[in-house]
């Protein structure tokens, strides 16, 4: 019980941080809106269902706002229509990448592991770049995001199959297979870029990672998908703790090692693929945030996983705010690396980090 109450405490605290970051972020932009006005707008958007009408041809759900604060209509439009989708998408993407990164570092027992270690990002990049450069190669009806998502999953699955023999997937083989596939796909992306012509700008833009094209559809789809996947990861948190002792020891303690790895790899891959598909390749969140949070809350995944995911959400919303706040928008992937790397190096030097 003690562990779960600790997890809950951290989750509540970090959710409060995230809510604050979102509120401040939604006020920042060409038009400055004070946080209290943003808070009122967000609270006004909270609705309660009052009645369900089943008489008509379709189900009608009547709702009633919970609060009715006085807000400027222009501000309301800016916050809800323009800024909020991008902010929420940033939160979901940061949440997913940090969660997947935490899981990968645990499975691989390797501090260099990140969500794309089994080729998810490279696969997504090939899918997206192929869509931008040679749309004809992508079957009809699949959009940019679909192409990236499919590319990511196909690649992750291929890496997994290559590394699996007799039902066993040694993590060292998985790591090396992932590195090799990423190098190969890097070459493919290079070739596509060479022949991209007019599309080069769009390709480079996508590869750097950005949240600029966020729509409410993206937000809704990812918000429906992510909690389910995250729930599965959390259910395996204790197994992952034991897995940190090494696979042989974990098996001796009653962990179904191969099945646990399979589930965790698959769920993390889908989580990462969903994030990369809507945002492009945003590095660093999945690599650094889990380390930062581990230094603070310790290695127990029942606490670490939710804490890292929520911290990742705040981190990406904050860095994306920086990315879009200037006169010219910078891809958020550049900001995460530019801000994250020095901070992480500082942590590395100030705390004696010898291992994960």
């Amino acid at each position, binding site marked *: 019980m003690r562990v779960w109450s600790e997890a809950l405490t951290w989750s509540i605290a970090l959710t409060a941080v995230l809510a604050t970051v979102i509120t401040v972020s939604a006020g920042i932009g060409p038009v400055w809106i004070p946080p209290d006005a943003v808070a009122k707008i967000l609270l006004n958007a909270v609705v309660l269902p009052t009645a369900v009408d089943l008489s008509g041809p379709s189900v009608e759900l009547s709702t009633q706002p919970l609060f009715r604060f006085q807000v400027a209509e222009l501000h309301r439009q800016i916050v809800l229509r323009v800024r909020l989708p991008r902010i929420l998408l940033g939160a979901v993407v940061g949440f997913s990448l940090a969660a997947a990164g935490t899981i990968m570092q645990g499975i691989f*027992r390797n501090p260099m592991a990140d969500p794309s270690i089994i080729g998810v990002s490279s696969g997504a990049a090939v899918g997206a770049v192929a869509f931008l450069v040679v749309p004809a190669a992508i079957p009809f009806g699949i959009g940019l995001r679909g192409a990236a998502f499919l590319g990511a999953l196909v690649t992750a699955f291929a890496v997994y199959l290559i590394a699996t023999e007799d039902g066993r997937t040694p993590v060292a083989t998985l790591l090396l297979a992932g590195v090799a596939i990423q190098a190969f796909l890097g070459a493919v992306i290079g070739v596509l870029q060479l022949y991209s012509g007019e599309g080069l700008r769009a390709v480079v833009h996508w590869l750097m990672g950005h949240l600029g094209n966020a729509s409410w559809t993206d937000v809704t789809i990812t918000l429906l998908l992510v909690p389910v996947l995250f729930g599965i990861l959390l259910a395996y948190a204790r197994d992952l703790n034991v897995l940190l002792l090494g696979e042989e020891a974990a098996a001796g303690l009653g962990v179904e090692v191969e099945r646990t790895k399979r589930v965790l790899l698959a769920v993390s891959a889908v989580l990462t693929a969903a994030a990369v598909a809507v945002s492009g390749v945003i590095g660093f969140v999945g690599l650094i945030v889990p380390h930062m949070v581990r230094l603070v809350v310790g290695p127990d995944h029942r606490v670490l996983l939710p804490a890292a995911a929520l911290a990742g959400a705040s981190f990406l919303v904050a860095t994306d705010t920086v990315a879009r706040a200037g006169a010219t928008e910078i891809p958020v992937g550049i900001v995460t690396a530019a801000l994250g790397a020095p901070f992480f190096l500082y942590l590395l030097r100030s705390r004696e980090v010898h291992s994960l």
Partner: protein
Amino acid sequence: MSDAPLVVDDVSVTLGGHAVVSAVSVTAESGDFVGLIGPNGAGKTTLLRAIRGGVTPTAGEITLAGQSVASLSAREIGRRVATVPQETELSFAFSVEEAVAMGRHAHIGRFGTADETDRKAVERALQRTSLTNLADRPVTELSGGERQRVLLARALAQATPVLLLDEPTANLDINHAIRTLETVRSVVDDGTAAVAAIHDLDLAARYCDRLVLLAEGSVVAAGSPDAVLTSETIAAAFDATAVVDRDERTGAPRVTALGDESDDL
């Protein structure tokens, strides 16, 4: 088929085309401390791995209280067999108590949390290994001897009928080695069946009820320490000349290995 906690029946294991264990039979009853001795590469570790389902025998069968290991899930095995490994990755900064509590993993459901039984088992394991004072220390800050005790405590917390130990004393000074084996002995006297691969022949003779001498995967001799440790068996298994006499204080056989020049004796 016997319902003893552990029965290894005519088991062979082939790894990478090599017969590592050949037709070995060992039985451990409740309250038995069985020592596996033999030179490096004799198959001791592989036999222990086979018992906990880590490798699959190519022939023969291993049963735990009458149930074949091959038919049990990792979780079911984890409730029947605990292992003290030679070394382990303890590189994450879990506290001693958390690390020992991982021994309860097989007893707790996926969505469950530790209950009173689990907490008692952890507490008792910490006491038996004199780790109670270190319970809150990160395992990464412990000495080699203390880490070995954490591994033993973790296995004791698992509270299984069968306890396997792979060179539990290999990295320990003589004081810690004796303390470890005293602890195992007391657990065995409480009804556990223990099987330990032990390098130190004198310690094996002193603490084990029975010894199984392995060489190149086969049993050279098995039985009481007195019967197993003789100049002849040691010459056969270790390819070394040794004198076996009796330690007056402990009453156990004592093995003194001699160099090759002793051929003249």
